[in-house]
């Protein structure tokens, strides 16, 4: 293996800046790595090698001219739910198997101005619905730490690719934990920014009020660099917020003096793996050693309703968001039908997978006349309550720490037939989307050779504090440096 693919963004940047390596060399190393391990990991839906090398040449040209940005020339894998102009964007669904968007997501545009090199598109659960990437219509992705295990989901492809050094970093999306849970399962860093921090334009919608794009990276510094590039208001996204973007890198400090970190007791849930629990306790001790004050008295009692709220709000929004796939304009189209209605029905019957159809039905039901008040409206009220509890917790704490998931990665196929068990693997991550606050998952140990994720939650638009804590923890531990043997 060429070691170049193991670099972080900031390491690669230093070498590129000093002209010790070129972007073409770095990109080739990554593409070679993909060729080497992809038949084991299956992280990528599409690899755009030629395009990537062309972009690398362009980046090298800029670098030669003394024009270098922090992401210039560094290869990135994009979750296949984010639109890329000229590169098919499938959402890992048969419905969009051959869909090539004529536009870039705002985030892609931002990466391109930084002269990033796009390697291709990462596998995922179909339309981001799932927690294991087994719901991809194409193939499941395997966990680089143990190929018999899932990488988590829905951003399983991007997380596995970063863990397996198939990409220097990746861009994912998170609706209920889809960045953090796979980052935790794969032993990498994943951040779900505050709702409105990063533009959603070009992110194929699953649940519009919960979706957010974020980085999947190898360490906190890379996370800050990517956030510097992608955060900010976008006039094309009315839900993006015009709030100043700090230089996240400037918050990366080694000690945690003066920070108060709360441990919400409801997140140490029943059914939590003992190895995860003890690893978290050790991690929290480390945070204390670094100078943080730990508050064990934090309570978020409405957390227990978050799962129920999520499974009303997300499917409801999804039922409308996915209505556009009718075979008339683009994507899969079943033509063997006697009428428009029949064609629409068959297109959706054959174009969508089971989990997607399950959620569309859940949402359609929840929004139906006579049920709306009991489900959707009630869920929105509870949502407000959950938000308020977080606000109260953040009155006395700068951040909250929990496990990212109650368990480490599970075996492929283990929960596929039991949706409820699958949904429960997001129990620690989805309240954050309900509240719209930011949270990061960082590697915090292993159970039986599988990574454990520690989740740090923060105040709205306070990603810098999360990055600060993640960085300090990282400086004091070695977990993020561990590499799987593939």
């Amino acid at each position: 293996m060429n070691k170049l693919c193991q670099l972080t963004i900031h390491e690669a940047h230093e070498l590129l800046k000093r002209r010790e390596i070129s972007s073409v060399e770095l990109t080739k190393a990554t593409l070679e790595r993909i060729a080497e391990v992809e038949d084991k990991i299956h992280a990528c839906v599409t690899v755009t090698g030629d395009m990537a090398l062309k972009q690398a040449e362009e980046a090298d040209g800029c670098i030669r001219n003394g024009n270098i940005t922090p992401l210039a020339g560094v290869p990135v894998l994009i979750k296949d739910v984010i639109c890329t102009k000229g590169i098919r964007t499938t959402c890992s669904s048969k419905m969009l198997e051959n869909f090539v968007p004529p536009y870039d997501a705002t985030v892609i545009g931002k990466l391109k101005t930084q002269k990033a090199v796009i390697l291709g598109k990462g596998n995922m659960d179909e339309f981001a619905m799932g927690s294991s990437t087994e719901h991809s219509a194409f193939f499941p992705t395997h966990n680089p730490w143990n190929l018999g295990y899932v990488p988590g989901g829905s951003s399983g492809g991007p997380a596995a690719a970063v863990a397996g050094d198939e990409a220097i970093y990746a861009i994912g999306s998170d609706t209920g934990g889809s960045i953090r849970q796979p980052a935790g399962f794969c032993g990498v860093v994943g951040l779900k920014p505050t709702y409105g921090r990063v533009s959603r334009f070009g992110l194929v919608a699953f649940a519009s009020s919960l979706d957010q794009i974020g980085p999947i990276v190898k360490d906190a510094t890379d996370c800050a660099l990517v956030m510097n590039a992608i955060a900010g208001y976008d006039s094309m996204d009315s839900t993006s917020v015009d709030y100043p973007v700090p230089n996240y890198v400037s918050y990366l400090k080694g000690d945690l003096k003066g920070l108060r970190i709360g441990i919400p007791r409801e997140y140490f849930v029943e059914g939590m793996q003992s190895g995860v629990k003890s690893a978290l306790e050790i991690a929290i001790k480390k945070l204390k050693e670094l100078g943080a004050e730990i508050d064990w008295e934090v309570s978020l009692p409405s957390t227990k309703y978050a799962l129920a709220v999520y499974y009303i709000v997300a499917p409801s929004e999804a039922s409308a968001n996915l209505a556009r796939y009718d075979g008339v304009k683009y994507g899969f189209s079943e033509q063997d039908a006697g009428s428009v209605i029949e064609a629409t029905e068959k297109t959706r019957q054959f174009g969508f997978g089971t989990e997607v159809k399950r959620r569309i039905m859940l949402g359609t039901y929840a929004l139906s006349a006579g049920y709306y008040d009991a489900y959707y409206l009630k869920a929105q009220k509870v949502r407000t309550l959950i938000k308020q509890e977080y606000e109260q917790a953040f009155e006395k704490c700068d951040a909250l720490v929990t496990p990212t998931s109650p368990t480490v990665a599970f075996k492929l196929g283990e929960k596929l037939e039991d949706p409820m068990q699958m949904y429960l693997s997001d129990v620690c991550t989805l309240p954050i989307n309900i509240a719209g606050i930011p949270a990061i998952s960082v590697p915090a140990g292993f159970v039986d050779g599988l990574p454990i994720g520690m989740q740090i939650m923060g105040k709205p638009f306070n990603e810098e504090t999360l990055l600060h804590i993640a960085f300090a923890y990282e400086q004091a531990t070695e977990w993020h440096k561990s590499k799987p043997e593939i």
Partner: protein
Amino acid sequence: MNYETVIGLEVHAQLLTRSKMFCSCSTDYVNAPPNTHVCPICLGMPGTLPVINKKAVEYTIMTALALECTIPEYTKFDRKNYFYPDMMKNYQISQYDAPIGKGGCLAINSNGHQKKINITRVHLEEDVAKLLHRGEYSLVDVNRSGIPLMETVSEPEISSAEEARDYLIKLRTILRYLGVSTGNMEDGSFRCDANISIRPAGSKELLSKVEVKNMNSFKAVYQALKYESKRQRKVLEEGGTLVQETRGWMDEKEVTVSQRSKEYADDYRYFPEPDLPPLFFDRAWIEEIKARLPELPEARKERLMAQYGLPLYDASILTSSRAMADYFENCLKLTSPDKAKIISNWLLGDFSRLLNATDSDIENTRISPGLLVELLNLVDKGTISGPTAKAVFEKMFYTGKKASDIVAKGKLSQLSDATELNGIVKQVLANNAKAVADYKAGKQQALTFLTGQIMKATRGTANPAVVREILVHELGGG
């Protein structure tokens, strides 16, 4: 039994914004080739997001204010879900329970009496694409998709087809005064659906409600509602029962035809549009919009009557279009207020006649207010006679030339010279001995005939007052 008709109207008006409701595509699509005014957003492509057109919101606020609606503290958009190939996202971004305007009213004049029709709401939504049916298959033209569409819903307080027509005309006049919509029914920028039912006179309870669609002109609305209220009475009189249904108006057959029964209500599964945060109105903005609302037809009518002493009839017609009223007042800026009635007569008479005959609008006329006033001045000074003025006006209407030029070129100046006229009168009297005899025998009409003959001989240029004086003298009447 005696029944009364109850009608509620839903009017959809496309707004005259430059760009579409949620994207930057041009709204000028009517003559554009199919699918040329489209983008990923109005095509509903994956990952795209709507951005509210502020101008469309402003136009809707203007309309709501003109209809005396309350503008709430905030408004929001909702998704209306149903599958149809003319809808790119298979949901329409509309407004459900927080419309831009609520609780207004519109005064109509029907059969000479004033009536106030309450307005339930004014809200904003996006238009859908156009389907072109080709027998075996259909084509979709997405140009119209995403055009801002403002819906005005009346309370079910309209009690006849006449009132419905008056309501529509009045509403359209207001939209045109505001400049927010062309109000053209023919090209579909102004559309009307009606809910109509009948009930025993004086009763409060409504019988089955019929929704009538596909009425593409004012005449169609009038005829369809007339037909429908008769049909419903007939069904009951013949012992039948009415069903809640949607019926379409067939223009050629002049009947309504059942399209689908509505035994259970459509479930559109409305929920708040998560891509668009609620809009909280800045009261100062609302006040600013209110302050620059143009004078509305009702107020202008009252003012024209008070300021210029015009009769109600004249003032009503002049204010039925903003362009006509503007034209009228622009003329008055160039002459004295005592000419108001004369100008009104011209506008309501020859001018309207020629506009109708040529199917044109006063906005595009070749006769500017200045040209019309110049013509009136020529009449005033006695340069040309009244009948000549009519002929000159018609020439002006088609050519846009100045009245004085037409008069000079056609030698149309009024003939007031008594000596010259005397000779012509004598000649005419000599040629019409019978009429002279009739007059002398007491037939007054003979005088009119003789005057006409004199006018004919002078190509209408003879000064009528002088002619009359000479005639009476010659015939020995005075």
